[in-house]
């Protein structure tokens, strides 16, 4: 039969080149403490943390269709857990980050059971309300500084590394590792059988359900995993800031609006989208930072233009034009080479 002349492949020239380039970039980034200045490293650390947040929001909203505008709930929760676990639990900050992730998953279960009853816009509003409940609750905890917040004691900061440079390098590497781990986790998940199911849900829930995919369960798992990892990123963010307050920890602007901007302009529902979106966001921010509020207006205009002209984002535009893919997720049926 003629089918024996065909084979199925998931890699291509572009994905192999991308993997090689990705590896080189990663090595250069790991070595940053030897070539970059302090301010650059600080900026890059921030970029990595946003990249991780955006990749997680993309998995949840772009693939599972859970358009949450309340992920600041988990960023803030993670941040506060870092402070509570180190100050009152006596944990090492890195152990506290891991435990914050586990606690984030635990707290996300009842939240999911509640908000999964809502659909579409009601779901989005519901997530925001939950985040406000989190903010108001943490503002009541006087041991954590109540409404005005608190700073991480010097002793805990010193436990990371004794020298200032050592701490800066460590926090840079932690941010880089978080972005790499999140993107790798998203990639391997999407490549798996469950990832195929999730991509099907992204495209058509009716058909996905009638092909045996348990939509509720798949979305639930994605929500819990996303919440857990977002809490860990939150802990890391406030380990760098060294100070936390309810308004900063649960800021919808910082931890959700900017993240949505990144994902939408980059290309929602693709792994590459958040990477491109993060780079563009920081490019705009660094070049327009001196303009004050005009900067935010420019961001708004950019978002509107891209949504109108390229609804699938910049990566969506490139992909449809050049049939390009950097992460080998798709299947290609190819004829076998002769001989």
């Amino acid at each position, binding site marked *: 039969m003629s*089918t024996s002349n065909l084979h*199925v492949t998931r890699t291509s020239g572009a994905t192999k080149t991308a993997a090689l380039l990705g590896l080189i970039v990663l090595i250069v980034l790991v070595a940053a403490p030897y070539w970059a200045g302090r301010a650059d490293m600080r900026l890059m650390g921030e970029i990595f943390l946003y990249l991780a947040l955006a990749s997680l929001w993309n998995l949840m909203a772009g693939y599972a269709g859970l358009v949450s505008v309340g992920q600041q709930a988990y960023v803030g929760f993670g941040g506060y857990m870092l402070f509570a676990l180190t100050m009152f639990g006596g944990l090492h900050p890195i152990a506290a980050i891991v435990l914050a992730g586990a606690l984030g998953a635990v707290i996300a279960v009842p939240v999911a059971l509640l908000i999964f009853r809502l659909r579409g816009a009601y779901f989005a509003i519901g997530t925001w309300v939950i985040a406000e409940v989190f903010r108001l609750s943490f503002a009541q905890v006087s041991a954590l500084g109540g409404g005005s917040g608190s700073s991480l004691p010097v002793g805990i900061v010193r436990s990371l590394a004794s020298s200032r440079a050592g701490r800066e390098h460590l926090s840079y590497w932690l941010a880089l590792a978080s972005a790499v781990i999140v993107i790798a986790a998203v990639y391997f998940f999407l490549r798996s059988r469950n990832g195929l199911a999730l991509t099907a849900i*992204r495209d058509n829930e009716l058909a*996905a359900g009638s*092909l045996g995919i348990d*939509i509720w369960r798949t979305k639930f798992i994605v929500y819990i995993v996303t919440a857990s990892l977002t809490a860990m990123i939150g802990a890391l963010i406030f380990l760098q800031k060294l100070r936390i307050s309810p308004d900063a920890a649960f800021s919808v602007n910082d931890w959700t609006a900017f993240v949505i901007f990144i994902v939408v302009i980059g290309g929602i529902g693709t792994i590459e989208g958040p990477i491109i979106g993060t780079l563009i966001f920081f490019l705009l921010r660094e070049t327009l930072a001196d303009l004050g509020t005009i900067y935010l207006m420019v961001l708004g205009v950019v978002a509107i233009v891209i949504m109108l002209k390229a609804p699938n984002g910049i990566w969506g535009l490139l992909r449809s034009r050049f049939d390009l893919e950097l992460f080998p997720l798709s299947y*290609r049926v190819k004829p076998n080479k002769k001989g």
Partner: protein
Amino acid sequence: MAAFLQLDQVSKSFGSVTVADGLSFEVGKGEALGVIGPNGAGKTSMFNLITGTLSPNSGAIHFDGSNITGHSAAKRCRAGMARSFQVPQPFSGMTVFENAMIAATQAGGMQGSEAEEYCIDVLEQTELLDRANVLAGGLTLLGRKRLELTRALCAKPKLLMLDEIAGGLTEAECTSLVQTIKDIHGRGVTIIWIEHVVHALLAVVDKLMVIDFGSKIAEGDPRTIMESPEVQEIYLGIEADA
């Protein structure tokens, strides 16, 4: 012998619109049942009730020995049902091959190269193999209908439900479609096929059922049914008064 699929007094209405009105029928294992009826008779709604996309207001549905009335669409699929949609529902952002892979891995329970080879075989059967790497959203209507059949077949069902897949095909395409469905039926797969292209239907099915206003009007030997006065009325275009 107990029926493979059994509907018992199934009713469903949306306000004053009744799509199923005390519908009862059985399909035996390995049987092929054809379903005809005028537009709006409730044929697709019947599929939605069987597959779990709709849940009935009353009545019960039994499949392969268990009561599935309260089960989700996904659970019914895993029990061995697969359907095609009358209005195609492709995974638009994925390729034709990936659409097939989802059915094979999620519903068909296959993995790795077994699933890949199975999908290639089915795509060849449904004449979509040369479009395997195309995004499903870019297919023509005919291509999308073929993709519906492809996905249903890749799910390796025990009960295959087809919803108007022959409409719009040329004579030659229709003949090859009939052959494909005959082959599947020959392997012992139970089939329910809703179709307006009656000659295609008659080439495959063992039994024919006529539905109108959400209830069964007639059921039995295909030739006898086609010659009955009610069906003549419907298919000669004469107003069929209730």
